[in-house]
């Protein structure tokens, strides 16, 4: 999924409100006002996990959500056939107790557990998975997950409305589901670990229609109790969850509209149990203070931040100019600005992704070389390209650092900070945006999810926002995609990545490292490199509320 700057993003619109809210928060803290449990009907002494977020959750409908915040809650409310471990990116059983695939990776069979129930009490059956995948494939749903299930045999006919069901999804009995694929796809099981393929009760979707997002029912450890738009979201235990004793807290209350700075004040006041984004300004202080440092958790994300260059727009159609920018930008400085919360990128793939090539060198910081390349490319002294970026304070600081670096090699960069949505729209248009800051976080652990999704010719107008194309890279990607022999598969992807790095459609910037801080009474919290944190195994020791 596209990531702005995971865990560090902040809305600039919240800026003004911050100081006022902070004042109110302090007033509340001083007056000893407790946070109360108004209207929640939670039993006295219930164990409640308190969280805070700046933005409201875009959606809870698993067919619609494709961002970190939506997935945070979807993965608690819904179950998929398979899922990643709490801290790893291996596939583990979820509703499927076991599964097997044919040697050529075209047939996948899943055997479901029989004790899973939705929070309304109805047992989860194989048809619930078929129903959701067909819902995602149905063009009327307009799901962003449709791409991942097109490879199922008969999907094309179903999408065109020629069949009632997808021919390639077979349900031999209530608790078995078989997927027949039109072409080999060794990663298919990983695609079923995304919330797009969660078990969803047909009768509830039918009842609420497009309002399902507000009335979701799933089989996950938690169920939705309350969602007050822009105010808070409350999850409580699903009494039917198939693992006894889980979840370990009774409820999760996420307060919405809390900016990063306010979140930090609330954390210090003990009103928030886990804080995802430590404000950059506070970070050095946290790291210098042993008491606070012990409360942090660190996780290198499977993501890459980059500066995209539109390869179809002069002068960025000249590889020398693109390489010059790679040499001119000081990535170590960017990481210093983030207080060390990142790892320098040498290429496209992040270090903890299977298939990552540790020998790839990329571009070192070398402004002299950048100047030479720009001279060769005959870039004059009055070159004023515009860099589009997300209007969030941290991103703006990074962009200003890049602006400083490019000034030294004679490129006068103009900055254009815009909101996240319009930025994504703008960079997707051909020949529209010459330079932009963006990032990508893995959906599943395979190089295809970066190289194929972001840099192949067929993704022009989709996710290939730098409009890069190299026929040899496309060939290698096509050859690698169905390959089940992992060694050979990764070799092909590594070869493709080397060509991409030489062609330099991006300035490869860094792989963000995220930090989370939790109160001393929070136990059992672990971070996953590729998915939001999960709440069901967290427990709280007694503390003053």
């Amino acid at each position, binding site marked *: 999924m596209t990531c702005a700057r995971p865990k560090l993003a902040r809305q*600039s619109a919240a*800026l*003004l409100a*911050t*100081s006022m809210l902070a004042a109110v928060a302090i007033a509340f803290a001083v007056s000893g006002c407790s946070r109360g449990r108004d209207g929640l009907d939670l039993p006295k002494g219930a164990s409640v996990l308190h969280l805070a977020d700046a933005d409201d959750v875009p959606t809870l409908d698993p067919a619609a959500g494709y961002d970190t915040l939506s997935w945070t809650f979807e993965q608690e409310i819904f179950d998929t056939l398979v899922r990643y471990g709490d801290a790893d990116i291996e596939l583990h059983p979820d509703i499927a107790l076991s599964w097997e695939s044919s040697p050529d990776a075209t047939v996948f069979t899943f055997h479901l557990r029989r004790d899973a129930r939705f929070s309304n009490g109805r047992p989860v059956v194989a048809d619930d998975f078929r129903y959701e995948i067909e819902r995602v494939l149905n063009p009327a749903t307009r799901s962003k997950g449709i791409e991942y299930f097109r490879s199922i045999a008969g999907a094309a006919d179903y999408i065109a409305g020629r069949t009632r069901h997808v021919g390639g999804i077979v349900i031999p009995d209530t608790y078995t589901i078989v997927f027949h694929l039109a072409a080999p796809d060794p990663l298919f099981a990983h695609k079923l670990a995304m919330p797009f393929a969660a078990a969803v009760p047909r009768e509830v979707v039918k009842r609420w229609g497009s309002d399902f997002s507000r009335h979701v029912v799933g089989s996950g450890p938690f169920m939705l109790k309350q969602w007050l738009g822009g105010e808070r979201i409350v999850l409580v235990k699903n009494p039917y969850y198939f693992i006894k004793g889980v979840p370990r807290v009774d409820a999760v209350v996420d307060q919405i509209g809390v900016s990063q*700075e306010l979140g930090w004040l609330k954390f210090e006041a003990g009103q928030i149990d886990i804080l995802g984004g430590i*404000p*950059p*300004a*506070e*970070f*050095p*202080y946290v790291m210098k203070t042993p008491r606070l440092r012990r409360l942090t958790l660190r996780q290198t994300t499977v993501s890459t931040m980059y500066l995209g260059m539109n390869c179809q727009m002069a002068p960025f159609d000249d590889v020398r100019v693109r390489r010059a920018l790679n040499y001119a930008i000081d990535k170590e*400085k960017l990481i*210093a*600005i*983030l*207080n060390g919360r990142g790892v320098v990128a040498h290429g496209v793939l992040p270090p903890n992704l299977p298939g990552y090539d540790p020998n790839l060198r990329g571009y070192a910081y070398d402004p002299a070389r950048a100047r030479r390349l720009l001279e060769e490319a005959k870039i004059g002294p009055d070159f004023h390209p515009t860099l589009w970026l997300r*209007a969030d*304070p*941290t991103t*703006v*600081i990074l962009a*200003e*650092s890049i*602006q*400083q670096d490019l*000034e*030294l090699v004679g490129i006068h960069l*103009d*900055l254009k*900070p815009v909101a996240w949505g319009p930025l994504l729209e703008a960079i997707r248009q051909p020949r529209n945006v010459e330079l932009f800051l963006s990032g990508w976080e893995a959906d599943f652990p395979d190089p295809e999810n970066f190289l194929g999704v972001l840099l192949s010719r067929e993704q022009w107008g989709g996710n290939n926002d730098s409009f890069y194309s190299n026929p040899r890279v496309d060939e290698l990607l096509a050859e690698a995609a169905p390959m089940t022999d992992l060694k050979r598969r990764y070799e092909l992807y590594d070869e493709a990545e080397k060509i991409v790095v030489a062609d330099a459609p991006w300035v490869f910037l860094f792989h963000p490292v995220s930090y989370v801080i939790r109160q001393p009474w929070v136990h059992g919290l672990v971070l996953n490199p590729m998915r939001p944190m999960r709440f069901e195994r967290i427990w709280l020791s007694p503390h003053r509320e």
Partner: protein
Amino acid sequence: MKRRAGTMELVGGAMVASLVVVAILAPWLAPHNPIRAVAPTFGNPAPPSWAFPMGTDELGRDVLSRVIYGARISLTVGVAAMAITMTIGVAIGLAAGFFGGKVDFVLMRFTDVMLTLPGLLLAMAFVSVLRPSLLSILLVIGIVSWTGIARVVRAEALSMAQRDFVLGARALGASPARLIVRHVLPNVMPIIIVMAALGTSGTLLLDASLSFLGLGVPPPTPSWGRMIEGATMYFRVAPWLATFPGLAIFYAVLAFNLLGYGVLRRRSA
């Protein structure tokens, strides 16, 4: 009374003059390049020291140099926007006051309508549409701040238009244009000058507010409002990042206010 008023405008004038000197001599006064990194304090701003009397910011830039260069932007915007404000306000005020009747009614109702719109919001809307640049900021500030001046000038012009010397000139066959330029305008000029000095502090503040909201002169050009905006994130750990540009805005606004009120007091004394 008169003596004190004189001190006030003298002090204000000296302060304004000092600002002008700092702005003009910025390249010689500033110890460092305001947009280059001069200390490796990336992400961890350094407090004031002997080498950097106002500290360095999260991008390793010298705050003192940025405050000095910021005077250029603030003064340019403050004064130029005031010139635009004055041009619009004086033209509308003179026309309304001199011609009276329907012209007065239409122009003043238009002014009333403009007055009902909150200036900052209107400015934000205009800047968003025009894209932030030095020129668009000047125009927008001019467009949203002329109303007060128009009303004051109208009131003055209204009374001037009835004075004997204007009536006399009219009787001698002077054209309206000549009457306005040669007879009315010179007599409302003192109040215009006072309004300009007072208004400049208003435009300075509006420029700072726009910059604070991310709609000012785009980076890397240092401007005081933008420096404070950038510093909000570091407010608790590096208060000097916001304090010094804040003091600079305070100084500039105070300078123009002292000058304006000083002149006003002497006039009315």
